[in-house]
């Protein structure tokens, strides 16, 4: 009994420590989401909607740029189809985020649906760059980060909707904290991985999209473009490797490549038959 109680206390302390680490990790997001959320709440309030809608939207939609878009569409008197299509297009970049989290999110258990729901740009950036402390629960840590960011966003938007017109804080420039966070996390990625090509892909895709697309579409455009560049480079590297391999095998023994040849022949035959 006593041991059990001790274990529980120990586990409780560990969770508290984990929560504090998660909180420290999310402080930059706190400082960014409060003014951004306030701007959203203030806009929605200005469009004539009760603050409860700011709360509901931030709770159930939880998408920064998506909610700003929604206010603009509300003001423009858009139809439901427009809301759906515009939101899908704007947030489609998130589909790419999930692609690189398939492995990280496997085995997180019952918090997985929530982690997927709460996958904003900032939470994605933190989850892909922050390492989980050894011996502590990955799912709990991820959940703390995601839920804290969510909480900041809700708090900011409600503050903006209720007090936005009363408070006259000069927060101009404060949301630059999120830019700074992305800069720091990019550098951490640079330290964590040997790969340098992703940065080249990002600079070329980003600059090109900045020039070619309007600000609202540039992020999705640049992510699609960058992914295509990554795939293109991978394909050409594989070709080079293949060419090197066949050269090598041709030099050493012809027997080894025979099975490959024999398996490819029927396919060739089929293609010929078809044409």
């Amino acid at each position, binding site marked *: 009994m006593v041991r059990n109680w001790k274990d529980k206390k120990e586990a409780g302390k560990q969770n508290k420590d984990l929560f504090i680490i998660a909180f420290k990790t999310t*402080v*930059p997001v706190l400082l960014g989401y409060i003014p951004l959320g306030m701007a959203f709440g203030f806009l929605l309030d200005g469009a*004539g909607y009760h603050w409860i*809608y700011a709360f*509901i939207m931030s709770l*159930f939609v*939880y*998408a920064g740029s*998506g*909610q700003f878009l*929604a206010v603009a569409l*509300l003001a423009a008197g858009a139809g439901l189809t427009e*809301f*759906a299509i515009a*939101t899908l297009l704007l*947030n489609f*970049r998130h*589909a*790419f985020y*999930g*692609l*690189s989290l*398939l*492995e990280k*999110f496997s085995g997180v258990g019952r918090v*997985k649906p929530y982690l*997927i*729901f709460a*996958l904003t740009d900032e939470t994605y*950036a933190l989850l*892909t*760059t922050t390492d989980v402390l050894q011996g502590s629960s990955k799912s709990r840590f991820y959940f703390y980060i995601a839920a804290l960011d969510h909480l900041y966003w809700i708090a900011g938007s409600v503050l903006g909707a209720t007090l936005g017109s009363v408070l006259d804080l000069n927060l101009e*420039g*404060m949301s*630059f*904290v999120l*830019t*700074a*966070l*992305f*800069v*720091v*996390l*990019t550098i951490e990625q*640079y330290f964590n991985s040997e*790969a340098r090509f*992703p*940065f080249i892909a*990002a600079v070329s*895709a*980003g*600059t090109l999209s900045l020039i070619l697309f309007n*600000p609202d579409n*540039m992020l999705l455009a*640049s992510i699609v473009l*960058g*992914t295509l560049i990554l*795939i293109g480079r*991978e*394909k050409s590297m594989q070709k080079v490797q293949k060419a090197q391999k066949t050269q090598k095998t041709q030099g050493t023994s012809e027997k080894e490549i025979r099975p490959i040849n024999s398996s490819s022949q029927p396919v060739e035959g089929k293609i010929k038959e078809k044409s």
Partner: protein
Amino acid sequence: MLDTLQMFITIAVIALATFATRALPFICFGSREPPAMLSVIEKNLPPMILLLLVIYCLKDVQWLTAPYGIPELLTIGVVAGLHFWKRNAMLSIFTGTTLYMVLVQFNAFSFL
């Protein structure tokens, strides 16, 4: 102005559309293996996306009129330099943000 019911339906549509974009890869590759090409570029996506997010933050900068994006570029330079030097995330982020707030609130580049 939408009435309460219309507003709830609209919010539900936006919420579902947003969740759909986030859940799509998990639905597609939840039970079957993702294609080989995908798993190869998977690890290269985070660094690329993070740098793209930095570039995205500069989307509204007016490069051709004063102050020509100098406050943004200067601050990013300071944050990056500080982080390469000290590698202390809090220090880099807060120094950068404070600097940027001072630069824009006091209009430090008004002479341009």
